[in-house]
C-alpha cells in the first residue's frame, strides 16, 4: 500500500522521525495551553509555511484536507455566531496550526522510519521490550500482507453474488467473509508456529546456522 509520504530533500525530511513526533506532540499541547491570538497566529503561520515549503502537489493536499478544512470553516462560523468571533479566531488558528504541522510531518516522514522509531523506543523497556518490538514489526507486516487479500475476497464474494443474480444482501457477504478470515487465522497461525514463532531473540545475531 502506498503511503502519503512524498520523497524530498527538505529540512523536515532529514530530521529523525522520533524527534518529529515528539516535537509535534509538544506543539499540540502548547497550542491548547495558550489563548493569545498573536501567539496562535504565529504558530499557524509557521505551520502553514512548513507545509508550503514541502512543495506538495495541491491536488493531493486538497484531497486529504478537504473534509477537515470544511469542518474547520464550519466550526469557525459556528463559534463566531454562537460564542464570539474572538473564540472563533482562537479555534480556527489552533486547528489550522495543528493540522498543517501534522500534515507536514506525515508527508515528510517515511512510514518505515516511524516504525523503526517506535521499535527503538520499545526495545530498552525491560526483558519483553525486544519481543514487543519484534511483534510490532510482525503485526504490521501481517496487516499489510492481508489488506489486498481481504479486498480480493470481498470482490470475489460480490461477483459470486452478482453471478447468481442474488439481491444485494450484505449478510451474505459479511458472514462468509468473516468465517474465511477466522479460518485464515488458524492457517496462518499454524504456518507461523511451524516457522518457529515465537522468536528466539537471545541468540547472537552473527551466528550462522550449522547443519548438525
Amino acid at each position, binding site marked *: 500500500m502506498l503511503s502519503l509520504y512524498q520523497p524530498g530533500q527538505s529540512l523536515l525530511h532529514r530530521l529523525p522521525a522520533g524527534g518529529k513526533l515528539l516535537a509535534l506532540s509538544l506543539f499540540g499541547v502548547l497550542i491548547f495551553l495558550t489563548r493569545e491570538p498573536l501567539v496562535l497566529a504565529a504558530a499557524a503561520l509557521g505551520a502553514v509555511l512548513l507545509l508550503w515549503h514541502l512543495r506538495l502537489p495541491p491536488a493531493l493536499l486538497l484531497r486529504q484536507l478537504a473534509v477537515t478544512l470544511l469542518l474547520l470553516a464550519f466550526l469557525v462560523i459556528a463559534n463566531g455566531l454562537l460564542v464570539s468571533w474572538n473564540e472563533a479566531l482562537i479555534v480556527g488558528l489552533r486547528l489550522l496550526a495543528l493540522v498543517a504541522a501534522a500534515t507536514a510531518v506525515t508527508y515528510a516522514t517515511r512510514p518505515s522510519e516511524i516504525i523503526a522509531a517506535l521499535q527503538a523506543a520499545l526495545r530498552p523497556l525491560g526483558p519483553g521490550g525486544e519481543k514487543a518490538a519484534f511483534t510490532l514489526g510482525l503485526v504490521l*507486516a501481517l496487516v*499489510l500482507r492481508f489488506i489486498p487479500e481481504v479486498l480480493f475476497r470481498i470482490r470475489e464474494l460480490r461477483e459470486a453474488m452478482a453471478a447468481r443474480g442474488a439481491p444485494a444482501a450484505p449478510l451474505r457477504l459479511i458472514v462468509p467473509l468473516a468465517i474465511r478470515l477466522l479460518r485464515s487465522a488458524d492457517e496462518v497461525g499454524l*504456518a507461523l508456529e511451524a516457522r518457529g514463532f515465537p*522468536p528466539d531473540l537471545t541468540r547472537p*545475531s552473527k551466528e550462522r*546456522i550449522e*547443519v548438525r
Partner: protein
Amino acid sequence: MRIDFQQVCVTRDGRNLLDSLSLSLEERRIGIIGANGSGKTTLARLCNGLVLPDTGRVLVEGLDTRKEVAEVRRRVGMVFQFPEAQIIQPIVLEDVAFGLQLRGFSGKQARAEAEELLRRLDLWELAERTAHSLSGGERQLVALAAVLITKPELILFDEPTNQLDLRHRNRLRARLRALPAQVIVVTHDLELLDDFDRVLLLDEGQLVFDGPPAQAVARYVAACA
C-alpha cells in the same frame, strides 16, 4: 533424522484421529497416503509438534515434541497445502528472510541469505513481488524457499501439490527430488511417491499398510475402487 511414535493417540471431539500408533521413521523419502479424515495430516503435524499426542509421545531425534518443540522446529520445516496463508510477509524477499529473523538474525543478514537462496533456486525474479500478486504455484515455491533458508534436516509436506496447476506440480516435484533434506510427504498425488523409500497408508486413524510405494499405492487404489 529419526522420529519415534510411542503409542500415540490423538482424539478430537470424541473421534480417534490416530489410534495407538507406534513406529519409527528414518528413511530419506517417506510418503503418507489415505482418504480424507484418515489421520495423515495429523500424523505429519505430530512430527513438528503442531499437534501434540493425547497419550504416548513423539520423539524427534530424541527430543520430546511436548517439551522441546522450539528445538524440534529448528530442525523440521513444513510446507502446507494452503499457499496463500503460509506467506507471512508482504514482499517475497522479506518472507524468505523471515525464518532467519525468527532465529535472531539481523534484518540485513537475513535478507542477504535470502537473496543468495533465491538466486540459487532460480527464483530471484520473484524477490520484489508482493505475496498477493503471486500465482498459487509461485507461492508454493516461495514457501519452500522460506522453509529451506533455515536448513532443516527434515521437511514435512502437507498435500503440497493440491492447489497447483500441472506446470507448477512438475516444478515442485523436481524440487522435491533434488532436496538434500529428509522428506515426509502427505499427498493424494500418487505419482509423487514413485521413487520413495517407504509409504504409510492410513485409514480412520489406523496404520493399514507400511512398506514400498508400489504396494501401498496399489492397496490404496484397490480400497478406493
